[in-house]
């Protein structure tokens, strides 16, 4: 039996839908499931039918933030959520907006929230659904992350979640894990601009990878790259604190990064940094590929 999925949208930019459409094995995956409704894919029901008909299904995917008074076409998001959430076996809050409020939250702080969470607090509009919900934050979420969760649900396997209801298999790591710039991080060699192959982006360019949970450098985007590998700082998009200000500048207090790598005490970090900076490693201070 194919899993029956309903995919609805709240306040969204369509980013997670587009990310999903970029899944490399989408054709194979679509043979395994049936979309009763998806805003972009051919579906069994229209949005109107979705709100009016009685039917059974397995998984509800919510993309976008929740605003109670929001309407999709002629259908109230709130009414739709109330109806579908009762029937759904599992609910996936896909993307940071659905999980925590995300980018759109800053437009209307009080009235735009995630399903279970409002930023870091468990004060979302549907917090009573906590036991059914799995958060897959990301701006957007990587399609492989969604497929992993859907496959686990289909196989009826237990998905271990962290305190923000994120699957540990995906979010127990930091984005820093697997970054090809780790050698520069170890020896505290800064990247002087975006897009260069050399240097760590943590010290000057605002990279949040050392304290952001995610698998971006383990499960590559489009199977080829990640932000940090390409020379762009991680913006911390899987965290409930997303979106911060001044994303391309590292906040410092007297030259010391305001945010430490995850779980690293400040004294330990400063001690190691002081030692590493005492040595100048010639190789790491030169261009990797010398054009001359």
């Amino acid at each position, binding site marked *: 039996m194919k899993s029956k999925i309903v995919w609805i949208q709240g306040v969204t930019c369509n980013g997670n839908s587009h990310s999903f459409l970029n899944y490399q094995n989408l054709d194979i995956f679509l043979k395994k499931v049936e979309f009763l409704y998806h805003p972009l894919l051919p579906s069994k029901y229209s949005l109107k039918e979705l709100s009016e008909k009685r039917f059974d299904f397995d998984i509800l995917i919510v993309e976008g933030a929740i605003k109670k008074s929001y309407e999709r076409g002629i259908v109230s998001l709130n009414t739709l959520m109330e109806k579908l959430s009762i029937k759904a076996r599992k609910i996936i809050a896909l993307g940071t907006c659905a999980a925590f409020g995300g980018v759109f939250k800053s437009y209307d702080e009080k009235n735009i929230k995630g399903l279970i969470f409002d930023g870091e607090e468990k004060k979302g509009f549907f917090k009573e659904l906590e036991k059914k919900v799995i958060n897959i934050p990301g701006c957007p979420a990587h399609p492989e992350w969604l497929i992993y969760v859907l496959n686990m649900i289909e196989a009826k396997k237990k998905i271990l979640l962290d305190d923000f209801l994120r699957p540990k298999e995906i979010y127990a790591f930091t984005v820093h894990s697997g970054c090809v710039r780790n050698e520069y991080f170890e020896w505290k060699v800064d990247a002087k601009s975006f897009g260069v192959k050399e240097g760590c982006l943590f010290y000057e360019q605002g990279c949040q990878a050392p304290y952001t949970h995610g698998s971006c450098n383990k499960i590559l985007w489009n199977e080829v790259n990640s932000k940090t590998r390409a020379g762009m700082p991680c913006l911390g998009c899987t965290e409930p604190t997303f979106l911060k200000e001044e994303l391309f500048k590292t906040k410092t207090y*007297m030259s*010391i990064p305001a945010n430490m790598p995850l779980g690293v005490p400040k004294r330990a970090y400063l001690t190691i940094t002081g030692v590493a*900076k005492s*040595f100048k490693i010639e190789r790491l201070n030169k261009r990797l590929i010398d054009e001359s």
Partner: protein
Amino acid sequence: MAKGSRKEKRKIEIMDTALKLFSKNGFYTVTIADIAKELEMSVGNIYNYFSSKDALAKELIMYISKILGSNIRQINMEKISAKEKIEKIVRFYFSMAKERPELIDYFLRVYLSHREVFKDGCEGMICVSPFVTEIMIFFEEGVKNGELREQDFFSAFGLFMGYLGGMVYLKGEGMLPNDLDFYINSISENIYRALKNEE
């Protein structure tokens, strides 16, 4: 070596004696034999603790850095303003200069003046890390709570420690008309004014 063990105590005794002799007679004049003689130990026995005079020199700067660092750490842990911390750090530094002048003397006259001794194994901040780390934390917390101004770390570090070191140096040269205590309040005020956030 277990902390507080007999060997550890003896090692500290050697370091304290070496510091006093270096301070009194100069780093290059004092030999391992002089230190042994002062302690009524054999020269060979000293080498059981330190493989060379250079190795002793490096251990000494780490020993001093730990003493300074642990005291400043206590000040950092107090729930007081950056202004009060500045005053406490100045007071502590000057009290060390008075009570154990050989420690500050070694820092200024040996470590900072004879970098050739420390070039292998004490590069950059390695041997003074416990002390510098605490100063970093003091600055970081001061800026974070809005009391101090954001600026480059070394600009602030030089102003603070250069100032204190300079005063102790002048005192050591007999050029200050008053005791160091006399200057604590005015120096603390000067440092605070130079670092404070005026926004």
